[in-house]
């Protein structure tokens, strides 16, 4: 009986360790039904660039702002400025940067670092 109990206890401890590793590391719980503010940063960036491209296409600033609220960002203009400057600093795609700069500029957040990417329409 002692032999059984000792074996049970040791196996229980080992099993707990294995279970926690599996449950937290190898196969962690996957969430569904999430909101956009839970998105990984790269997908938040992707969404932001898509909205900025949409703004370039239709020039609808209010619509773009409304769509950005999906990300539950507290200060959308500041967020767009930060994202734009991060894209410029990281030398991301020029097309993405141009769209973000246009969006940021539309929100009155055109900073000197963005100037070279500003789309200027010639007369």
């Amino acid at each position, binding site marked *: 009986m002692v032999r059984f109990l000792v074996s049970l206890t040791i196996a229980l401890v080992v*099993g707990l360790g294995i279970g926690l590793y599996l449950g937290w590391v190898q196969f962690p719980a996957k*969430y569904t039904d999430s909101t956009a503010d839970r998105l990984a940063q790269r997908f938040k960036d992707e969404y932001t660039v898509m909205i900025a491209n949409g703004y370039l296409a239709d020039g609808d600033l209010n619509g773009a702002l409304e769509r950005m609220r999906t990300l539950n960002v507290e200060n959308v203009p500041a967020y767009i400025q930060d994202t734009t400057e991060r894209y410029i600093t990281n030398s991301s795609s020029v097309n993405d940067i141009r769209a973000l700069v246009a969006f940021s500029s539309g929100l009155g957040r055109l900073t000197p670092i963005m100037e070279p990417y500003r789309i200027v329409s010639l007369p």
Partner: protein
Amino acid sequence: MTERMSAEAPSRYHRPRRPFSIAGILIGLALGIGGALFFAWTVAPIEESDTEPWQLNASTKDQYVVAIALNYANDNDLGTAINRLVSLQLPGDPIQAVADAACRLATTGYVNSSSGLSAVRSMMRFYQPQGRTGCADSLISLDDGQGSGVVMIDVPTPTQTLTPPPSKTPTQVAAAPTATPILVVVPTIPPQNDFDMVGVTPSCTAETSGLIVVQVYEADASTGSPGQEIRVRWDDGESRFFTGLKPEMGSGYADFEMESGKDYILDMPGHADPLSQPLSASPCNTPTGERAVISYRVVFRAIG
């Protein structure tokens, strides 16, 4: 002889015991792993992070689809758009899923704003060339070139169901000291429509950006009619103002500044019915290339 045999090979009846119990180990492992998984997945799951688009809820996925369609409207990169749709793990055909999402949005208040309407049109421009269809096709016209940006929905004309309150009638006093007849003043109901809406003219200029200019004229169509009440209603508000408060613009003049992206319903309460279509404060480009919000001139004239 027997002693020699037992020294060479242990008897099956005298096998040495293992230092552990197989049953104990199996039961312990099962309990440990099962309990730990329950704890790790249910009681204390890891904090949600690195969420991918496919994990979003249905309404947010629709917003993501809108963003994909808007992005496609700018870059026309079909491959990237489809890859993004696939990453959403929408059921069935990803392009048909865009049509389904457009249908859902077109049947909700999402299309009440010009931005929402424009977004659904972008979705339609994405899936229609790919041969997909959805209910949005029959609800929303793809042509928004000269339109007012408003969904046309046939709404039955409301009929008045309330019975008018009984009018006060003089009661005869039995022992009236005098025979003076009592003068009863019966209020007459003013005509409901004593003004007609003559026309609505949209324009796009920087000077009048987002302005609704109302001109109310007498029946001769040239004399302004001051003091006429104009009502403007939008999603969550209403404003009433009067003509003639800016005499320098004319006695029948009144104006109202719209907020970009909203739709407004205008009427003269008790005098003219609301316009059949809301006035949509859509962005526009002036002839000189400046960005502005569309403005409207609405003219009412008294019925002669």
